[in-house]
């Protein structure tokens, strides 16, 4: 459920650099309203990436992958919205969400300059890195930090489905070579 952005940037951002790890420190763990915002933002980023890919991708497999991303991430975000409404929680914007959005916008601009096979390759490579980064963040930071049981459960379902996305993206990436 979370994100998608630039391959290298994504990995760097969530795994080793400032953005998600910052919030991950035990002393400063994200609150549920922040987690909800991060998760939703990450989903929106991958949805937008998929929409871009639907317009630009050339390979049939890449187009099909983008369609799968759109379907699943929209489903997760719809569920997330229903949950925050039910829990009466207002998602709270935060530095992690802002950094994610900024990186995503940069990556999207970068991908927009590519066409055909070059786009396909760059998009899928980024999807691999993005899902890897998001899954890592979910596992080590967001899920452990979530205090509401339903939010935690939704994040766990998200992790499960995004692990499948990562495998799928890796498979498509291997086929493109």
């Amino acid at each position, binding site marked *: 459920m979370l994100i998608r952005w630039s391959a290298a940037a994504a990995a760097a951002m969530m795994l080793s650099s400032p953005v998600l790890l910052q919030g991950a420190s035990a002393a400063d763990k994200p609150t549920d309203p922040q987690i909800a915002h991060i998760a939703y933002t990450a989903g929106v980023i991958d949805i937008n990436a998929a929409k871009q890919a639907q317009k630009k991708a050339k390979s049939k497999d890449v187009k099909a992958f983008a369609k799968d991303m759109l379907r699943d991430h929209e*489903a997760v975000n719809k569920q997330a919205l229903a949950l925050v409404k039910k829990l009466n929680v207002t998602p709270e914007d935060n530095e992690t969400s802002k950094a994610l959005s900024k990186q995503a916008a940069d990556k999207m601009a970068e991908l927009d300059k590519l066409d055909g096979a070059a786009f396909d390759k760059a998009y899928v490579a980024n999807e691999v890195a993005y899902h890897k980064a998001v899954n890592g963040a979910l596992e080590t930071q967001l899920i452990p930090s979530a205090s509401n049981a339903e939010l935690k459960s939704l994040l766990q379902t998200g992790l499960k489905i995004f692990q499948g996305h990562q495998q799928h993206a890796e498979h498509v990436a291997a086929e493109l070579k």
Partner: protein
Amino acid sequence: MPGRLASIALAAVLLSMVVPARAATIEITMDNLVIAPPEVSAKIGDTITWVNRDFFAHTATARNGDFDVMLPPKKSATSVLKKAGTIEYYCRYHPNMKATLKIEP
């Protein structure tokens, strides 16, 4: 007319031999990205009720092409089994979801 009664009775007996005793309805669920039960035995004429409890769309897609059932989020669908065989099937959207359906004649 005992002769005619007898032939009707015979026809009824023959018919009951041809028509399967009773077709069963078997439920297979998809919940949290898992298909349960992972292995099902059924007979030709049985009905499978596919239940998708997830908020994701799934499919039940036979690897040999025998069926491809679409399951929108939180929806069910049914299939009547018409062909014998051991069929491996999976969800096209989430290929980690896989299971087996054994259909006996």
